[in-house]
């Protein structure tokens, strides 16, 4: 019985420690994907500006409130616009960014195909 209680307590402590760790990890993960809007080329995770420090606290608060990762991104996009994330969406401003590599890949593939396979 004592051993059983000990195991339960141990599991409980481990579970709490694990959940805290995962919350911190999630905060870090999200803050790495969020742009520090007042910094030059830094993520919120990298920056120690007042903006970034407050943003990290807000992300932590939102996680504590039960927000999921995507919901936090959506919340911040609503407040600051799409620019805040490092993951550009496919729209009329970013289509070149998404389509050009595919076009280049297809063109390169076609050239290689013609040279190597068609010649044979």
């Amino acid at each position, binding site marked *: 019985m004592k051993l059983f209680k000990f195991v339960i307590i141990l599991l409980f402590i481990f579970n709490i420690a694990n959940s805290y760790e995962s919350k911190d990890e999630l905060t870090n993960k999200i803050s790495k994907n969020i742009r520090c*809007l007042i910094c030059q080329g830094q993520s919120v995770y990298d920056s120690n500006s007042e*903006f970034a420090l*407050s943003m990290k*606290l*807000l992300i932590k*608060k939102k996680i504590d409130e039960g927000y999921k990762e995507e919901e936090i991104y959506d919340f911040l996009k*609503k*407040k600051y616009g799409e620019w805040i994330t490092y993951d550009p969406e496919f729209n009329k401003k970013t289509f070149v960014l998404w389509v050009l590599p595919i076009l280049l890949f297809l063109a390169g593939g076609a050239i290689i195909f013609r040279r190597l396979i068609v010649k044979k």
Partner: protein
Amino acid sequence: MKNKFILGFLIIFFIFCFIILFKSLRNSNIYVPEQNFEKKLINFNSEDFFSGKKISSEDVFVGSDYYILNIWASWCGPCRTEHPQLMELSKNLSIKLIGLNYKDDLKNAKKFINNFGNPYSTILLDHDGIISIELGAYGIPETFIINKQKNIIRKYTGILNRERIKEINLILK
């Protein structure tokens, strides 16, 4: 025939790259926050600057057609520069000017208000900056114009200069 095709493809590709780079390089790469938009004001809980009592935004944003929410701090140089404009704006009785004190030392903030005057009808405290971020602020000073329906109709990042005050007066007319 094959060489012509490759040459044509390369020319089109370089023209395409040139147009993209030419257009992009002509635009400023400094991020400018959106200023004209209509977003619902969030409800938040804070503390009163003078009494320290807990206070809800719903109790503050009542009884006026327009509200001006100004985020400031005593350690912020530009806030000192814009303070006379806020004092001038506070003379307009049709608006309610609300201050949000951002990450400040309360003693210094009170000293600031005593020295330069208090243009605000209410001052709320934002100890850790979370309220400002939830409002969509970038830094301080920052000013939001809010209408009766609690929609943010205009946002000013940076100091309120004379031109901006004129613009605010036009909006409020």
